[in-house]
């Protein structure tokens, strides 16, 4: 079922999940299961979503007005809830992404201070 060894998987950092959901929805509205799958797939299955925590996160994002929910039909022709990014969500994603990049860069520099000289 999985192509990676268990030890290489990384538990999601708290709060990062929100960011990943937003990123996933940039490509278009999705239902819950598809979002979970997309995150795993796009991270090369390194990031493992505890799928249960996806739903509270979705609700949190709805509450903040970054996404909204609409009814649709899933691939097996059942009614399902689709989540779609709002304009505010898009803005938030941009903001969070740049913040994340800065942080990641900074941490990387700290962790590999000699990289440049090598």
């Amino acid at each position: 079922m999985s192509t990676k060894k268990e030890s290489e998987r990384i538990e999601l950092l708290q709060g990062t999940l929100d960011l990943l959901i937003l990123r996933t929805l940039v490509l278009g509205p999705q239902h819950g299961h598809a979002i979970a799958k997309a995150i795993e797939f796009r991270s090369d299955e390194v990031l493992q979503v505890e799928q249960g925590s996806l739903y509270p996160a979705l609700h949190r994002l709805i509450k903040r007005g970054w996404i909204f929910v609409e009814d649709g039909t899933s691939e097996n022709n059942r009614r399902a809830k689709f989540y779609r990014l709002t304009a505010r969500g898009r803005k938030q994603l941009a903001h969070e992404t740049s913040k994340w990049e800065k942080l990641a860069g900074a941490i990387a520099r700290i962790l590999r201070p000699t990289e440049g000289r090598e």
Partner: protein
Amino acid sequence: MKRRAKRLLNDLDQEIREHIELATQENIDRGMPPEEARHAALRKFGNVTRAKEDAREVWSTVWLEELRQDIRFGLRQLRQSPAFTTVVILTLALGIGANTAIYSFMESILLRSLPVADPESLVVLNWHSQPPEDGNKEWVHVMHSVSGLAWKGDNGAMVSGMFPYGAFETLREENPVFSTLFGYFNGRKRNLAVRGQATSASAEYVTGEYFRGLAVSPVAGRLIDSGDDRPGAAPVAVVSFGTSQNRFGGPPNAIGQSILVDNIPFTVIGVAPPEFFGVDPAAAPDLYLPLHTNLLVDGAGAARMYGDGNYYWIEMMGRLRPGVSMAQAQAVLAPRFHQWVATTATIDGERAKLPALMLNPGAAGLGSLRRKYSKPLFVLLTMVALILAIACANIANLLLARAAARRREMAVRLSLGAGRFRVVRQLLTESVMLASLGGALGVLFAIWGMGSLTFLLSNGQENFTLHAELNWNVLGVTAALSVVCGLLFGLAPAIQSTRPDVMSALKNGRGGGPHRRAQHVLVVAQIAFSFLILVAAGLFVQTLNKLHSVQLGYARENILLFSLNARQAGHRDPEIATFYTELRKRFESIPGVSSATLSHSSIISAERAGRTYRGPMKIGAFTFVGAGVLVAGPRFLTTMQIPILAGREIDDRDQAGSTPVAVISERLARTYFGNENPVGRRITFLDEKRDLEIVGVSANLQYGGLKEESPMTVFVAISQFSPDRVTYALRTAGDPLRYVQSVYEIVREADPGIPVTNVVTQVAEIDRTISQEVTFAKLCTGFAVLALLIACVGLYGTMSYNVAQQIGEIGIRMALGAQGRAVVWMVLRRVLILAAVGLAISVPAALSASQLVKSFLFETQPNDPGTLALAGVVLLSAAILAGYAPARRASRIDPLAALRHE
């Protein structure tokens, strides 16, 4: 929003099922057996219940959850600095507790309604008129005689709630604005005998409409109605709930019982409900009697009260008809009263100042308590509010210092992306938590404070009716107060420490100028407030000292006082005089009692209590008023240790039939006889056309209350004046209260139908008259100490913090050769400057504020320079004391260590 959340949550079950089914299907597609595929999908999803719970929490309790986090974090913070937490909570608890205690009294006096149905529709009838005295101090007024109280209204007007019975009848007839108009009249203390056991009970005479008008229902039997209140009706009585329990063993047992009220038989027909206390919160009658039964109890003389249109005695309340406002009622009734009262005026002088009817809200009952206590309580409330302000300033100060220490923490949190609002909220949660803990502890202080305040105010009075309680109103105010305090002292520090100049804080981690400025402002405010309280305390203590140093001229210690009323138990002239005389002799024979005497009242309350002569007197050609008459029995001067300067004191020779005699005080003798010997001369009581022979001269004494200017005194013989009620005084060896039992036994032996009342030592009787001054002096001294303490803690904290901030600077100075003394002076100078600024603000404030308490002072000027100076000195000394420790610490700084630290 709510509905959207509900729908999302309702659909969540279905959504999760779909999710798992999709995952299972995928696993099956990948070739797993169905059972295993489903397990794998479930495993991957994780805890379904928790997912749902978390989702629900997103909607319902985000802020609650954050609050819980904040509180948990706050508690950890508070535990980390226990000293800080304890100081803050204790100061606050004292401040909030004091406020709660005083407020609970205000609530009980000013805000509480009568415990009857729809109290808002009750109105009290009063009238006001110009003062009765004309330019020559002659009484010119339609009110010729009065039983009850009049008081001063605005612009010196006379205000009263007493009316002639005729006015009550006139207003009661076809009243278009009141559904009921009812009257009542203070029946005072009566001798109540139940099954042969006599006690003293307070009675209220009420008209037949009284209970109907108040809409009160009995707990047993029935209440007085119009049929009971007419001349000749069978005498019936309603007893209070307490009386029914104490005297009859419960309400049902009381019904139908025969009782004696001043020896007149009555039948108990009903019991009032437990919470009912009549219409005056200052009184709690034990006994309600139909108005017209006073013809039986008070004798034939009472008949005059019903016919005399110039005799003011009955009080009235009305219940407004639905939809009628008080102003409308006033507009209807005032002309009607005016018309009636005009017919009672006989001369132009009376017509010129007829009483005018005035309606007042009656929801809270009569205002006697309010008139007596509202101003003192406002003064006390102001003081405790000041203390709370000092406490809040102090805590804000401590928090500022702590905020400075926590600046790095805040800066880190802010730079990690925490919202400033979130951090401020966290800090405010901490301060509100502190305040709430302080408030909770404060309630305990308040309970203790209310107990001791009741004790102080009542000062041994029987049936003290001012009962403060911690009801929801009071607790609500306390809770609100705590939260407001928390926000008040937390806001400034919270905003300060989260100021966005994150970088500088991260770099050096030391507080800058604005902190110190804010701290200084707070310290100055604390000093200014403390000074106000110190001055007040000084003034009240000064007043108490002056009162204590009043020369009484008679013995204070080792005197036992108690009162008897033989007339109420059926004794009549002339036997009553013999009865009282015999009793005196028996009291005198108690071992340990060196002498016994009796008088119409104790000396300290002689001018107000008991029946005595209060009219003009004449000696030779001089007519004068204002000499105090004391109706005294044999050996009065001996017992009270008042020196006899000439002649003799009143003794057993003076009998009802013998020559009427008087003993006058030295001042009276000097004023009207100069150096002549007054013994053998005469003094005349003009109103009673009574001629008395002066048989002796006593030394001067303080007749009446301590605050009054001591009038000249005339002693007359009790056997020749025969009052109803007498007060005995026993001069005892050792504690006077040890002899109470013997007194009870002697009285019971003489007549078991006479209750012994007002048993008290002379010392307590005197202190009772100055209980308000004692209370004020004690409370304010306590408040002042408290305020000073809190302010000193604030000052100490600020200076310590300042010194810590300036370690580097001080180190440099010392390295450059500054002496320790110079450093001490540097710190102390700042303390003194702060104190001086505080004083400069406060002295003018104190000068004007002290005028407000002028009426509470005795022989003390509100701007008493001595008190102001003393308060200033105390404050400055305290400030120096508080500042000295930090100053000394500063002078011991090791320059090297300090510079390295920098």
